[in-house]
């Protein structure tokens, strides 16, 4: 029996859809198993088609992106209603995504910068006709509705998608691996004694050695091992874009914890190495952090 699948896009970059398309010929093995009933990214279904489906009539619902507007929230709720198994597809859905970094500022400040003060804008105003209102902050979708499975990634690789879809289509559970990026990285690793941190453009990275050992902030140690260590493989420090290792409650806080243990320098020097801790220790999961939650609640109370 083919499974009915819906793929919904909230505010996102389309990268997860592109990753699915990037199965390329592999699509030919997946497509016969599924009946796509909703996928505006590539197929001409409209929102009202989804809304008019009977509840729980979709076997597997995949939600990409996070809630930046009330329309996103509505679509998320509709997907929950109509789907038996709801999957948080990509880090935007699991942890808020890169747009979660906007939570560092109030909504007024964000809107102001874009519509009122942008350098090339000649007649500022805040649009309000036929456009949905923004949410005060970006919250991870998993905080808004209940999900049945999570597939983090920025985007999840085509192989991750194939594994997840294969499991879900055959009714098996899809569990995240208890691995970090380091487990998938082939570089030579030493005991950690970092005397100095370098910014990524400084010097030349030795491709055979662990990047962290060389003093580059590679976050592979705290990041879930789903991607195959694609960035270290091309001599580039991991930025943690797939989110934390399983059971880690707050990615950036865990990274600080590890840095405290492995850096051998004066604390003041460590502090100076990271003038932007939020940007260095969070990337796609700031919205899921305690900091973001505290600020979200603070703003919510102030509004009352």
């Amino acid at each position: 029996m083919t499974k009915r699948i819906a793929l919904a896009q909230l505010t996102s970059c389309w990268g997860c859809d592109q990753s699915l398309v990037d199965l390329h010929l592999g699509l030919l093995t997946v497509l016969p198993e599924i009946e796509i009933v909703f996928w505006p990214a590539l197929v001409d279904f409209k929102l009202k088609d989804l809304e008019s489906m009977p509840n729980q009539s979709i076997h597997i619902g995949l939600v990409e992106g996070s809630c930046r507007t009330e329309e996103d929230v509505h679509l998320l709720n509709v997907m929950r209603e109509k789907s038996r198994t709801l999957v948080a597809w990509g880090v935007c859905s699991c942890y808020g995504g890169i747009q979660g970094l906007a939570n560092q500022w109030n909504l007024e400040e964000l809107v102001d910068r874009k519509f009122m003060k942008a350098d090339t804008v000649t007649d500022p105003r805040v649009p309000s006709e036929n456009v949905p209102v923004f949410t005060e902050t970006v919250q991870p979708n998993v905080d808004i509705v209940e999900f049945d499975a999570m597939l983090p990634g920025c985007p999840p690789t085509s192989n991750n998608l194939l594994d997840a879809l294969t499991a879900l289509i055959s009714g098996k559970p899809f569990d995240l691996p208890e691995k970090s990026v380091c487990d998938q990285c082939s570089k030579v690793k030493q005991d950690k004694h970092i005397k100095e941190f370098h910014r990524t453009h400084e010097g030349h990275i030795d491709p055979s050695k662990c990047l962290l050992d060389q003093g580059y902030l590679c976050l592979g140690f705290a990041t879930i091992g789903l991607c195959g260590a694609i960035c270290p493989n091309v001599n580039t420090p991991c930025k943690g874009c797939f989110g934390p290792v399983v059971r880690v409650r707050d990615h950036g806080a865990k990274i600080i914890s590890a840095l405290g243990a492995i850096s051998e320098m004066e604390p003041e020097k460590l502090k100076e190495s990271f003038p932007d801790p939020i940007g260095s220790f969070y990337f796609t999961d700031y919205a899921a952090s305690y900091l973001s939650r505290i600020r979200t609640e603070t703003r919510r109370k102030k509004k009352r």
Partner: protein
Amino acid sequence: MPTGVSNGLTAAGQKSTSSQKPKTKVEGNFEPRILAFCCNWCSYAGADLAGTSRMQMPPNMRIIRVNCTGRIDPVFVLDALNQGADGVLISGCHPGDCHYTSGNLKMKSRFVLLQKMLEEAGIEPERVHLQWASAAEGDVFTQGVTFMVERIKALGPNPVRKD
């Protein structure tokens, strides 16, 4: 559990031996709820000493004893703030005295990054504080607690606090 923590006292009646003067502004009836992580070997013993010596301390601390401040994951501090703690105090051994050699140094490194990150996120960095107090320094512990309470009173309650 440290004894001798008396009620209803402010820093006004305490000897001030450090150069740091506490603010005296008091925010209405606001009584801060402060979580204090104390390492077993130095600060917890110091707190105990403060109690048995009948040193007067404001009652606002909830103390969690850890073996070493090196055990403290920054997540604990953030979780406490997220749950509504008005402040988090971490009290450990002086550098060089750590029972596990360098746990407190790891704490110091974590702390400076954590505090900077709080500030960047728009949360008052003064809500968290790190101090060193040895087993013999009941007075230092007491003073640290007293100053902390004053600082937090001046900041006001944690906006997230549910009452």
